[in-house]
């Protein structure tokens, strides 16, 4: 069998990317990138997860303190995508929309996202070092495990990671957890 090909059915993620591009074209969101466990998988290897985290900016930035995702839900209604308080079901993917404008780290993560080809579409995916910084900020066991996975695969650039962690004041949090990581990532 040719490497990178298989007999498995095609993925629906390409169809989700089409929807996100359409939302961007319709002026609902201005920019977005895949984050969370699916981004971890795209950079490394498959791990079990059910949801797809999409970090995004609203095309019309929130005016007050209260964030409204009503335009996103309107879009879901119009396109018959079922949703509840947690997820929007887009072509079988449980998509969680995470508005990122209040966080300088998340903002930069979207703005510097990498592009990958998935199902012949161009997908924006948060890079490894920003993901690691986001996970160290969240600090849950499952987040630390994802950083360990990146560490084992040796796919983070230590210089870039140090730069991101220091600019977003995350070095102290990293140092609390760095006993879990290899020598390269001892800061």
């Amino acid at each position: 069998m040719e490497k990178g090909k298989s007999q498995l059915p095609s993925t629906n993620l390409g169809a989700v990317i089409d929807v996100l591009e359409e939302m961007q074209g319709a002026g609902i969101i201005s920019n977005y990138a895949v984050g969370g466990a699916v981004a971890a998988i795209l950079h490394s290897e498959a791990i079990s997860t059910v949801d797809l985290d999409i970090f995004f900016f609203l095309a019309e930035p929130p005016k007050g303190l209260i964030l409204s995702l009503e335009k996103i839900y309107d879009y879901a209604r119009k396109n018959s995508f079922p949703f509840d308080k947690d997820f929007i079901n887009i072509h079988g993917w449980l998509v969680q929309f995470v508005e990122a404008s209040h966080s300088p780290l998340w903002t930069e993560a979207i703005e510097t996202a990498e592009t990958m080809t998935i199902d012949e579409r161009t997908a924006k995916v948060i890079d490894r070092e920003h993901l690691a910084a986001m996970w160290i900020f969240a600090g849950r066991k499952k987040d630390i495990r994802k950083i360990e996975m990146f560490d084992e695969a040796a796919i983070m650039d230590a210089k870039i990671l140090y730069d991101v962690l220091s600019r977003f004041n995350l070095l102290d949090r990293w140092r609390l957890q760095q006993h879990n990581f290899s020598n390269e990532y001892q800061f």
Partner: protein
Amino acid sequence: MNINFEKEAVEDLKRRKENFRAFARNLSPTEKIRQLELLQRRYYELLKAREENGGRKIPEKWRKWRDAQNI
């Protein structure tokens, strides 16, 4: 003798696991997503079997996933 055999078996298992992980890391993004979709289906079957055998209930997130898949 037995200890050596067990040690070799464990080493062999570790090697095979590492080889598979190296293979998995080198797949294309599309193929990684296919692998994830396969993993999701297998994991859900495990959760379902556990519940059907009197174990813990399928977590809410996975029920939502099942509904989204129309399983």
